[in-house]
Structures are given as C-alpha cells and as structure tokens.
C-alpha cells in the first residue's frame, strides 16, 4: 500500500487519482504511525518551501520522514515534495530541508551562461535527458513531461537520473538509494508520467534498491 503524505500543501487529489487509474492501492494520511505502515511513500507538494517545512514540523512528519528514509522503503517526492528532500532552499529566506539528498534549492537566475534571458517559472513540457540509470526510468524513452516551478535543485550529477534543458541542465528525476524525486508533475504528464508512477509502484512492490 502506498501512503500519500497530507500536510496541507498540494494537489493530493490529482496524485491519488493517478494511482487509482493505475490500479494501485493507496491511502492519504498525515499520521506518522499510519504512514509508517506504507510500503512506499509519496510526498507531494505545491507552494512555498518555508511553509511546507513548517507544516511538516508541526505535524511531526519531519522526524518520521527521516526515520522512514533509513528504513530503506521507497520515498518519492514530487515537485515541491522533491525539493524538500534536499538540504535547504532560499525561497522566502533560507530554510532547512529534510537533507535526505545532497544539494540545495535555488531560484532560476533567469539568464543563461551566455547572458540570454529566459522566462521564470519554467512552465510547460520539456524533454527528459537521461543521466544515471534508475529503475524509475526503466522501459520509458526520453520523452516530454510537464514542469511548473521557479526554483530548482543544485545537486551533484551522481544523484541526477534525468534532467531537462532550461537555461542549464535542470535536475528532473533524482535519487539516491530509496530516496527519489521528480521535479515535474508525473500525474499531469500524460502517458509518460503514468509510466513513471507505474515504475515507482513496481519498485515499492519488489523493494528493488535503486
């Protein structure tokens, strides 16, 4: 059973319906005890990093997620949920994250290395470029997924499974062992997104280490 973390930040409805369409069993909860029973966890999220961490702290989910990560069971952060897995973010003042992945969250500078300006947020369909192999990407071709974000992860390349070109190579799928993240919205990314979620379900079912 997959547990979807409800901490008042996000599009739980779309994420849960996506699992429903894939025929996966899931539950939505903010209770650490109940979530602890899940074979895999989804940390969704839309909104500001600072508010999200405050909510997680208040619901005593911060410690829970760290403990869950150590248990080796799969944890997937989506969009803001992915960003929370890193060490800190500069959104509305520097805020400490869950530190389950190395790196930090920074705002898109809006200008690339050649001085050409680009629009922020990074909004729309962008193509995944594969980097370090991951079971999350198995059987899926490099294809388009839907992004909508103003902040992105600055992280060592060895945790980047896929990136998208936007000013620079933006981490799109990240992972280290059982800790995984997607910067885009798989639940809004058509067939490719559904295939990625299906792979997460498979990982959860087989407890494959990533």
């Amino acid at each position, binding site marked *: 059973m997959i547990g979807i973390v409800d901490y008042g930040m996000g599009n739980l409805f779309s994420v849960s*319906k996506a699992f429903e369409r894939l025929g996966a069993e899931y539950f939505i909860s903010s209770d650490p005890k109940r979530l602890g029973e899940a074979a895999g966890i989804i940390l969704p999220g839309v909104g500001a990093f600072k508010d999200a961490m405050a909510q997680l702290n208040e619901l005593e989910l911060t410690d829970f997620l760290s403990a869950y990560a150590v248990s080796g069971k799969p944890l997937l952060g989506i969009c803001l949920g992915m960003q929370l897995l890193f060490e800190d973010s500069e959104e509305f003042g520097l805020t400490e994250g869950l530190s389950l992945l190395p790196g930090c969250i920074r705002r898109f500078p809006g200008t690339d290395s050649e001085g050409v300006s680009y*629009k922020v947020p*990074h909004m729309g369909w*962008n193509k995944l470029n594969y980097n370090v192999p991951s079971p999350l990407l198995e059987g899926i071709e490099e294809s388009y997924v839907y992004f909508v974000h103003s902040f992105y992860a600055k992280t060592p390349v060895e945790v980047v499974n896929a990136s998208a070109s936007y000013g620079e190579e933006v981490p799109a799928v990240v992972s280290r062992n059982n800790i995984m993240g997607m910067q885009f919205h798989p639940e809004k990314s058509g067939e490719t997104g559904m295939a990625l979620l299906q792979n997460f379900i498979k990982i959860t079912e087989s407890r494959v280490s990533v």
Partner: protein
Amino acid sequence: MITKRIIPCLDVKEGRVVKGIQFLGLRDAGDPVELAAFYDREGADELVFLDISASHEGRKTMVEVVKSVAASLAIPFTVGGGINSLEDMKRILRAGADKVSLNTAAVLRPELIAEGSRFFGAQCIVVAIDARYDEEQGTWMVYTHGGRKRTDKTAVDWAMEAVSLGAGEILLTSMDSDGEKNGFNLELTSAVSEAVSVPVIASGGAGNAEHFYEAFEEGKADAALAASIFHYKETSVTEVKSFLKSRGVNIR
C-alpha cells in the same frame, strides 16, 4: 528545450462549453469533461477553463467539473472566472486544477495576486488580461467584467505590476482580435511578452495554424490559446502542431 504550448480554451457557462464572438452571441459547443478528454488525446499541452459569466453573476466555477477532469486525465489545466479570494483559489486547486486565473478580482484588489502567490507559489497564479486598443491613448487598455468595463490601466503596465506582485503567467486576450479569426494581436503580445519575465499566453484571433506560428515567432508568446477553431473542428490541435513542427517550432 521547453516546447511552445497549444492550449484549447473551454469557456464554460452552467457546466457547458460556449464561445462568443467578441464576448457576445454564445453558441453551445459541448460538455467540458468530454472535450477535455478529446483535447488530451489530440495532444493539447494544457487546457484552460474559464467561467465567462462568473464575474458578471458572481457565480463560482464548477468545482465538480474540475474534479471530474482531474480524476480522469493526466493533463495540466487552469481554471478562471469568479475567483475572488484565497478561499476560492484553495477550492479550485484542491479539486485538482494546476493553476488559477485571476482577472477582474485582481484588478479590483491587486493584493489578491500576492496572497495567492505567497500561499501556492507564483507558478499557480495566472493573471488574465483582456485588452483593447485605445486610439487616443495610443496603447492597449485593460477591461474587466468580461470586457464590459474599461479601466485606466494599460495592458503593459498592468502585466508588469501583476508579475511584481507574484503572477507566474499572463493570459493575454486581445478583445480587438477575439472571435475575428484574423490572427493573434502580435503587437500587443510581443509588447507584453517583452515587458515581463514570466510566460505569456496569446489569446484571441486564432483562425489557422499559421496564426500560431506568428504568435510564437513575432508575438514572442510562450503559449497560444484558441477555442472556436478547435471546438468547431475548423482545424485540430494535431494539425496545428504538425504544421508548427514543419516550420521548426519546438513542439511536443
């Protein structure tokens, strides 16, 4: 590289999709959920639902329609019309919409943009601008209340103000071009797109695939929106996208 987006717009009135010619003379063009599924299959990059009568009659957009769309489809969509408060935004976003679009309410109370942006992040907040050219002023002026009320704001200034308050995208409709099918208003679109740092959706005037090409190349738009030409099958999303690809535009 990010792709240019093609966005069918579903103007909704009482749960049905309609499209007016310059906001008058509505015709019924179908059921929103069915149309959303159809456009998803056709390769639409995103959808916009606008409750066109909401500002006028104070009617709230249909949360149930939003839920049915979000439950059945993996496609991003924006909902606008009658969103006047943070509570309205919460209802729509929690029902599964990805973005909310603010129009009249944001002009009347610009802080609403900041409140929404602070709570959900700029990427969730679209500011919709209806603009019409004013000969005397020599520029485009902003209209509210479904195009019925002229304001003293220029489209370019208001777009810049909205972005500084936290808008993550501008949905720009040319009232002069809307329903005419003679092409997007390229001057207006490029003027706004070059003035702001966020993506701009061109709207109003699409008549054929070439018009989309112009909107991206000359209008500097990041996305382009159309309703009637798609709803009445004068062209299709698939046709428009394959034409754009053949012209070298980066398309999904």
